[in-house]
């Protein structure tokens, strides 16, 4: 491996850890990022010439730490000069407490909790996590979220300012706050993953790389919170979705439905790992249940082999834990696959009065499909037309209108 490659690898492995440590030591987020950057810049010069150090992480941390100490001493000296106070701060002033510890504790967990603090806006939590923990640049984050760069820079500046001004603590929250705050961290990582997952094939590479970043951060979280089964559940869920990515889009960039995907193209190593994580996460939480559902899909050799009764039961469990009409709709689909369209329709009909689904095109779309399968063509047609009117996606609209037109009893069609 060349020195350059080694720096690249160390960047992915060590950036978050170094920034997290420097924030703890200096309390200054910008200084921490700048000094971490300086350390990697030095590595780029030194490693190719002098060889890669035995412990690259320790080398980088020490370099960044010394740089921060330097800059803080210089700052103090300047401040003293400005106030004309003599003598100036000695260059040999001892490092403040906590600076010389070795090995350096892993501060990434507290950094995650602070970045994902509920007092920060959601978009800022995601951006800050990507910047400080994953090491993406502002330019990259802006591109990943299709936001102009100055707006993204603003977002990061504001978030850091709020952390400082409102004194959002830099720590792993105490036990009584931990469940709520952990779910915020998990929510941020899941949102990051979904942003990447929803990116089209033609989208910027950086946008698609959000999935990999989210998975990487979820792995860190699992390492740092080994007793948090929902963290393992989330990692499993991401892996089991990510595994299907190679088969999700056709060459034209259109979505391929799960049942039509070429399962040979799924990433079987990811599936195996995801399934193992699901098995190793006892008890039930929203992410674990969703991961178990994804595992049912991913382990079916063909779409026809899918274990729909288990999936329907899992959606039932999920609905009890986090009641949501969208979960109910998914349960209805699973029920219809497991026990026939009438079983699904009964659940869908109960959802018809749900105000939050009034403009959700999938409700009439699913209802139309079930009615069609039951031979109730006139009603099915109405539902498909309603669904077509509700969607803004032109391609989806075309498909729904085609299904509406096909709602004719066989033999009587034109």
């Amino acid at each position, binding site marked *: 491996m060349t020195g350059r490659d080694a720096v690249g690898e160390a960047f992915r492995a060590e950036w978050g850890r170094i920034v997290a440590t420097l924030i703890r030591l200096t309390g200054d987020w910008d200084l921490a990022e700048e000094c971490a950057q300086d350390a990697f810049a030095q590595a780029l010069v030194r490693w190719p010439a002098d060889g890669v150090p035995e412990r690259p992480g320790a080398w980088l941390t020490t370099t960044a730490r010394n740089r921060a100490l330097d800059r803080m001493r210089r700052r103090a000296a300047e401040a003293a000069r400005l106030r004309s106070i003599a003598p100036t701060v000695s260059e040999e002033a001892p490092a403040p407490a906590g600076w010389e510890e070795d090995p350096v504790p892993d501060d990434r967990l507290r950094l995650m909790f602070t970045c994902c*603090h509920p*007092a920060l806006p959601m978009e800022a939590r995601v951006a800050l996590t990507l910047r400080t923990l994953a090491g993406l640049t502002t330019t990259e984050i802006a591109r990943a979220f299709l936001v102009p760069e100055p707006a993204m820079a603003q977002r990061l500046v504001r978030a850091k300012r709020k952390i400082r*001004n*409102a*004194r*959002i*603590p830099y720590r792993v*929250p105490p036990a009584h706050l931990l469940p709520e705050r952990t779910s915020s961290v998990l929510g941020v990582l899941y949102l990051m993953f979904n942003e990447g997952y929803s990116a089209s094939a033609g989208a910027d590479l950086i946008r698609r790389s959000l999935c990999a970043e989210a998975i990487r951060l979820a792995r860190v979280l699992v390492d740092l919170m080994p007793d948090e089964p929902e963290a393992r559940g989330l990692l499993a869920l991401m892996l089991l979705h990510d595994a299907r990515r190679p088969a999700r889009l056709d060459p034209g960039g259109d979505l391929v439905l799960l049942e039509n995907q070429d399962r040979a193209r799924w990433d079987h190593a990811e599936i195996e790992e995801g399934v193992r994580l699901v098995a190793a996460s006892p008890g039930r939480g929203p992410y674990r249940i969703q991961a178990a559902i994804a595992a049912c899909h991913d382990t079916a050799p063909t779409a026809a082999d899918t274990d729909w009764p288990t999936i329907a039961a899992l959606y039932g469990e999920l609905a009890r834990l986090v009641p949501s009409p969208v979960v109910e709709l998914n349960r209805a689909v699973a029920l219809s696959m497991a026990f026939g369209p009438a079983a699904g329709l009964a659940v869908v009909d109960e959802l018809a009065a749900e105000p939050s689904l009034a403009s959700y095109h999938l409700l009439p779309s699913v209802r139309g499909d079930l009615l069609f399968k039951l031979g109730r063509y006139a009603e099915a047609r109405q539902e498909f037309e309603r669904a077509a009117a509700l969607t803004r996606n032109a391609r989806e609209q075309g498909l729904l209108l085609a299904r509406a037109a096909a709602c004719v009893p066989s033999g009587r069609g034109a």
Partner: protein
Amino acid sequence: MKFLMLVVAGGAEPGEADQPGYTIEEWLDETERRGVRLEGDRLLGVGDATTVRESGRLVTDGPFADTKEWIAGYDVLDCADMDEAIEIASKHPVARVGAIEVRPFWSG
């Protein structure tokens, strides 16, 4: 570190007040015991509010913003950090039926 707690009333649906939680007396007891509340008071209703703009050239009756929610009181807190301020605010009885806005002081 000082925080201003704006107690915002209104906007609640009937019945939402039935959730269990602190009474105002219990809240005052706890904040006093912990020494996190410097002062605070309830305000008279928005009917008694007057808004002054442009250095007094424009005086109007009523609150600065005409919404369903209004500022019903305030407290000045002295807390270790945002988490403690959020915790104190979340225990205030109005947090169950209205909202509490927590704002750090400019001068810390």
